[in-house]
C-alpha cells in the first residue's frame, strides 16, 4: 500500500480526459458542480464537450437520455444525493426503462462528504439504484479502480451508475496483475475465520483492519466488491462456504446497499450469519470526513472493533 492519496472524484475527472482521447463520442454533463465533481478537469481540456446544465438535475438526466439516442455517450455528473435521490424517477423512467447508454458519475457519496452535513451525505444511493432493472452499479475502492471503472462503464452498453467519493484515500490496487472485470469481486486477502466483503473507500480500511486482527491471531479474509450490480454471487457464496461468517462494510446505509445485496445472495444460496457494517439507519452530520468515518465506525479501528466482537 502506497501513501499516495487520491479522491475517486479526481480519478473520474482525469479518466474522462483519457477516455475522450480514445473515444470522441463522449460528452460530459454537470449541474453547476464541475469544480467539485472534477468534471472541471475535462472541461479545461475539452470545453466544447462539456455541458453545464445548471442547477437542474432532473432536466440534466432527461437531457442525457435524449443525447444518448443521438449517437453520443453522455457522462452525467453531480453529487450522489442529486443523481440518485433528486433525479431518481428521471433515471428510472427516462434512462433505465428504455435502457439508454447513459453513464452517471455520482460523486460525494456517503458521510465522507464531511462538513456539508446530512443534506449532502448520500447513504441511500446504492439502495435506490439497485432497484432499477438493468442498472449497473460500480463503487470503486481507489484511484486505480475508479479510472478502470470509467473505461468499463464506457465499454458496457447500457446505463451505469458510478459512485465516487470526495475524500482522498490511499491506493490499494497497485498490483502488476490488476485487472478490472465488471461484475467480478476481487479477493484481496484470504482468511479462514471470517470474510469481510467491502466496497468503495471502506475496502482499504477493511484490509487494514484485517491486518491488525491477523496480528492478534484472527485470520480474516477481505473481498472487494467494486460492482454492486450485477453482484458476483459466486465469490460471495464461496466465501460463506469457506468461513461461515461474513461481514459487509460500506459507507452507505445498512439497508439496501452492499449489506442488503450480500444477504440476498446468501439467504437464497448459503444461509450464513452476516454482520452488516455501515450507516445504521440514521442521518449523518457535519464534521471532518475522517472524524465522521471514525464516529460511524467505518475506519480501520471501528471495523476491527466490530468484527472482533462479532467473532468472539
Amino acid at each position: 500500500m502506497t501513501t499516495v492519496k487520491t479522491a475517486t472524484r479526481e480519478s473520474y475527472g482525469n479518466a474522462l480526459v483519457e477516455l475522450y482521447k480514445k473515444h470522441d463520442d463522449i460528452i460530459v454533463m454537470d449541474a453547476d458542480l464541475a469544480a467539485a465533481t472534477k468534471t472541471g478537469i475535462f472541461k479545461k481540456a475539452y470545453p466544447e464537450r462539456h455541458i453545464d446544465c445548471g442547477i437542474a438535475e432532473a432536466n440534466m438526466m432527461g437531457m442525457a437520455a435524449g443525447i444518448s439516442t443521438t449517437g453520443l455517450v453522455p457522462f452525467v455528473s453531480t453529487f450522489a444525493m442529486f443523481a440518485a435521490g433528486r433525479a431518481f424517477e428521471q433515471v428510472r423512467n427516462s434512462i433505465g426503462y428504455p435502457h439508454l447508454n447513459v453513464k452517471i458519475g455520482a460523486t460525494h457519496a456517503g458521510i465522507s462528504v464531511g462538513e456539508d452535513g446530512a443534506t449532502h451525505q448520500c447513504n441511500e444511493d446504492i439502495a435506490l439504484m439497485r432497484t432499477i432493472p438493468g442498472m449497473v452499479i460500480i463503487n470503486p475502492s481507489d484511484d486505480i479502480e475508479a479510472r478502470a471503472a470509467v473505461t468499463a462503464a464506457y465499454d458496457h452498453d447500457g446505463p451505469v451508475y458510478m459512485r465516487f467519493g470526495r475524500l482522498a484515500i490511499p491506493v490499494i490496487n497497485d498490483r502488476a496483475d490488476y485487472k478490472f472485470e465488471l461484475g467480478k469481486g476481487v479477493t484481496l486477502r484470504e482468511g479462514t475465520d471470517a470474510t469481510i466483503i467491502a466496497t468503495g473507500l471502506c475496502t482499504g480500511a477493511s484490509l487494514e483492519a484485517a491486518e491488525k486482527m491477523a496480528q492478534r491471531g484472527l485470520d480474516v479474509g477481505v473481498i472487494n466488491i467494486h460492482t454492486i450490480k450485477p453482484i458476483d454471487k459466486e465469490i460471495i457464496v464461496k466465501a460463506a462456504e469457506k468461513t461461515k461468517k461474513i461481514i459487509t462494510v460500506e459507507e452507505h446505509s445498512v439497508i439496501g446497499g452492499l449489506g442488503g445485496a450480500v444477504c440476498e445472495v446468501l439467504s437464497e444460496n448459503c444461509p450464513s450469519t452476516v454482520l452488516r457494517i455501515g450507516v445504521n439507519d440514521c442521518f449523518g452530520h457535519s464534521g471532518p470526513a475522517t472524524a465522521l468515518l471514525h464516529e460511524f465506525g467505518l475506519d480501520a479501528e471501528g471495523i476491527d472493533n466490530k468484527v472482533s466482537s462479532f467473532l468472539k
Partner: protein
Amino acid sequence: MRKNIITATFNAKSGHPGGSLSAADILSYLYFEEMNVDSKAPHDENRDRFVLSKGHAAPALYSVLALKGYIPAKDLKTLRHIDSYLQGHPDMKHTPGVDMSTGSLGQGISAAVGMALSAKVQNKSFRIYAMLGDGELQEGQVWEASMFAGSHGLDNLTVVVDNNNLQIDGTVREICSPYPIGEKFRAFNFHVINIDAHDFDQIRAAFKEAKSSKGKPTAIIAKSIKGKGVSFMENAVGWHGKAPNEEQYKQAMQELEKNGEVSA
C-alpha cells in the same frame, strides 16, 4: 386518424381518448408534412425526432405511426393488451417510430432538449419536435428544460403545447393555472406562436415560422378541444382517461365517418 384512436381505446377498454383527439391534427401534420422521417428507416441518425412528452396521448402517436407505415394498423386494436408491444405509454424499445419512451409528465421535453443540443454539438441539421400537455406545464421539470433550451438558443427545437384546457381533476385554470402560457415561454427566451390546433393553415404557417426563427427555440401554443371530433367527448373532463363503451364507440365512429376521417 381519429377513428384509429377511438378503435384503439375502445379495444383497450382504457386509455386516453380526449387528449389524443386534441393532439391528432398536429401529429398528422408533423408526420405527413413537416418532419423528415422515413418509416423504412426509423433509426436513421439524421432523421427529425418527435417526443410525445404528454405520453398518455400514445393512441394518437400509434395511430399516426400506423398511417405512416411504421406499424401495422391491425395492431392498434391490441393497445394496452397484455401481449402487445403497444404499451399504455410510448415505449421506444419495442415500437418502431417512437423516438423516446415517455409517460411520466415533464420528462419528454428534457429528452427533446438533449437531442436538440446534441444536433448542435454534432453540427447536424435534424430538428426536434416535442408535444406537451397544458396540465403538464405544472411539472417543474418543464421549466428547467425550457430554461436550458432558451438560454442555449436551441432553434432546432419546437415545443407544441396542446392547450385543451383540461386535466384529470378539472380545468387547468382551476387546478393550478399555467396561464399566461405564451408569456411564460417568452420569458424563457422562446419564440412564441399562438394557433388554433385544428386549423391546418395555421398549423402549417406556425411550423414554417418556427423553422425560420433563428437563435431561439419556438413554442407553439395550440388552442385545442379535448375530445375533438366526437361530440360527447369534446371539452368533457371525464374523457381524459376513459375508453368508450360499445354504444359510444359506434356513435363516435359514425360522427367521425361523417366528417370524412380516414383510418389506416
